[in-house]
């Protein structure tokens, strides 16, 4: 077992867990944050996406010891109780979530994409989200949600 200490959604946490525990299980089973989903467990679907030090990663492929001292953001850290994050609001309005199982990962991937490309082209969106599989939407509503978020951010400047 190892004591793993890191910053999770703004607060410091310490967990005693086997060092090879997948970050996904650390979040879901040890810390009871179930917004991060498991779709494949092999890095293909992106539904376990979280941000580690601002970079998008698949939490099913991260051994927990490697997040020692890191900053982790999950879907629970994005919006607030009373206020949806603009990405969440746009996903809601544009129909970007259907069954919702890919949605937390997709929203974090969108967050990462918009950090790197505040005004992404359609091709940048297509590439930026291509590691997040969605079986329900055919992605079109998701693209609109991303574009809408970018537009609102631009207008808000």
């Amino acid at each position: 077992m190892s004591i793993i200490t890191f910053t999770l959604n703004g607060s410091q946490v310490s967990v005693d867990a086997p060092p090879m525990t997948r970050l996904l299980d650390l979040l879901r089973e040890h810390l009871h944050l179930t917004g991060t989903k498991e779709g494949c467990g092999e890095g293909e679907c992106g539904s376990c996406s979280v941000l580690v030090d601002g970079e998008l990663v698949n939490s099913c492929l991260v051994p927990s010891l490697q997040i020692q001292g890191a900053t982790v953001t999950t879907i629970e850290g994005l919006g607030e109780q009373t206020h949806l994050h603009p990405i969440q609001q746009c996903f809601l309005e544009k129909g970007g979530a259907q069954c919702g199982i890919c949605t937390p990962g997709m929203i974090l991937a969108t967050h990462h994409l918009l950090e790197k490309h505040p005004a992404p082209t359609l091709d940048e969106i297509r590439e930026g989200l291509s590691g997040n599989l969605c079986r329900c939407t055919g992605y079109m509503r998701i693209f609109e949600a991303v574009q809408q978020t970018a537009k609102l951010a631009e207008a808000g400047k």
Partner: protein
Amino acid sequence: MAPKEPIVGAPALRYEGEAKVLGRAKYIDDLHFPQMIHGATVRSKFPRGRITAIRYGEGVPWDEFTIVTWRDIPGENTIVHLLKDHPCLVEEIVNHPEEPIVLLAHPDKALLRKAVDAVTIEYEPLPAVFTIEESEAPDAPVIWNSEAGDSPNVFKTYLMEKGNVDDVWASADYIIEGEYSTGAQEQLYIENNGVIAEYTEESVTVWGSMQCPYYLHHALQLAFALPEEKCRVIQVETGGAFGGKEDYPSVIGCHAALLAMKSGRPVKMVYDRLEDMAATTKRHPSRTRHRTAVSKDGRLLGGEIEFAIDGGAYVTLSPVVLSRGTIHAAGPYNWPNLRIRAKAVATNCPPHGAFRGFGAPQSIFGLERHMDLIAKTVGITPEELRRRNFLQPGGSTATGQLIKDPIDLNGMLTRALEESGYHAKRAEFTKTNPTSPIKRGIGFATFMHGAGFTGSGERRLNSLVAIEIDDEGSPEILVSSTEFGQGTNTILCQVAAQTLHIPYKNVRIAQPDTHRVPNSGPTVASRTAMIVGKLVEDASHNLLTCMRASGLLEETYTPEQFCHAALAYKQKHGELRATARYQAPGDIFWDDDKYRGDAYPAYAWAVYVAEVEVDTRTYMAEVKNFWALQEVGKVLNPVLAKGQVEGGVAQGIGYAIYEKCVWKDGVMANNQMTNYIMPTSADLPPIHVLFEEVPSIHGPFGAKGIGELPMDGPAPAILNAIEEATGVCFNHCPLLPEDIFDKLANPTSISADSSQLQPAVAGPVFSGTTS
């Protein structure tokens, strides 16, 4: 006062959308019960055989495990669907790989995995078959035989006839034959199958990811020999289903419940991706053979269609899938004479099951490819051929159903071709293709999809819905119809809100719980919007009638007045509840024996156009642009409806050119997301969704079904476009680059294809394969 803006037809926000975007929606694997332990399944590693021994290996503390075999089943050892041939756990004979034999439960998930691996099963192998051809071969081993089946290895047959097709061959100008086939397709919902079961005081409760709580409810009653009221099923947030959680939850639900009974603790069973892909249902593989008599001006004089599907090892839902496939095999065309023979055969693959479209995508694929072959043979354009044969109002379908709705397929085709720039593109591609390594093409498919259960199905379902006023005075819809992404919650609340003249956000919908909600039928068959929606509308009217009759509600009212009146009524009478039960429209008739009549109350109609590129260096086909025009009656929610169509088209594109199940002796060899290729956001073209709205009297505010339709058209439209691009016809989907390569690089293999036969030499060699 009625709300100023209509609610139906407006983009009301998804009912449970906020919880989903916040990551707060709780799916089955997100739930934890006190004392809960985990369950796992030991499965057969072989396709068919007799079990001779089960050994529990060394190094596992077996006394800590709950172990369930078929002997622990208190009731019947069956997962009931249409028949009872499907055992809950194998007793002696294994009929497919991955068949459940032993169930294990333990508090420690990781130990459970080791225990599963430590169980070895010895068996005496028996001969097995894996394809339709092997199953129907004259010397095939008999792998399934039952009084309920039509003959050995055949689960079900249908014969559908119109006119007298035997008379047309002599007078036909052309007789055109073709054979078309489709592969299995994995639903690939991103959330795997999962349930939690609890067994207390002789009653069983299962929470799970599912489409049809009452299916599992029924299965539990039989497996546990318990009365209805002792079985309870609760659907929790479901991460995609597409048919894949129609019948399978009955299997995993019964399994978890058995473990819960034996262990005395709540048991969670959630499959991982490998197990879900290997062991659960997929779309039925199919084969369609066409023989068509056509006049020289391109009119369909008559046809024979043989439609066969591979049902896997047990009957499950195959007869119903076959039925829908059979009826849709004739398409939106006028057939003066037609004979369709259809059969579902047994193989030693895991049972195939429901997947969006339910047999229709398979037979429509065959027909729409065949239509292009007919056009080519007769020497007219695919467009012209369809125009000469479209069903018209006043005409009758292959089942003899009179078309009463004012459909205009010609107009729809014109619009779809215009929107897509079809004619200009066709001309351009003909010019540019000869000198370009990238061949471009544009093709289309025209088709329809029936809403609701087939034939007398809705009459038998006899669905019931209720609306109840809650403690805050808000109406709550009680239905067993489930939300798994398609928008059930939202559209039903919209219908109720509009009917009750109150804001959308004032309406609630109950979590589907068989102890609370009446049976409004399964959430399948594109029936929810039309059938259940209509019942919600009726129940809302009944609620209003009841409130008005009590004198508590005026003719016009504000939402606040509604709320006060509702609460006042409740105070006086204890509860305020209205129901509505399905009543078959008086003018709809279906004859199950003759397989004739009004197959569906209403159809959705569509024209889908695909533009493709085929790179002759890599043999890869890619869809570059897509137009989906459909007439689905009133569109209840434009954002949700678009999302349904886009999602369906994406699955259809996958079906056409990406998604291949690789089988090795009944085992899915590519049961991983890395090797089963579904389209990513970088693979899909723009999808232009276009609606026409001809209100139907059968649905609420004129709505019809929309869920399955978009799965039907993409594959044939895309393969038609690929033929346009390459000049070579491909009659199987999925069509992978390797298949395109096989034909493009080996021109000799092309002439060997029966579909390339010249009409003059296509004699009456249509080999009968249906019994």
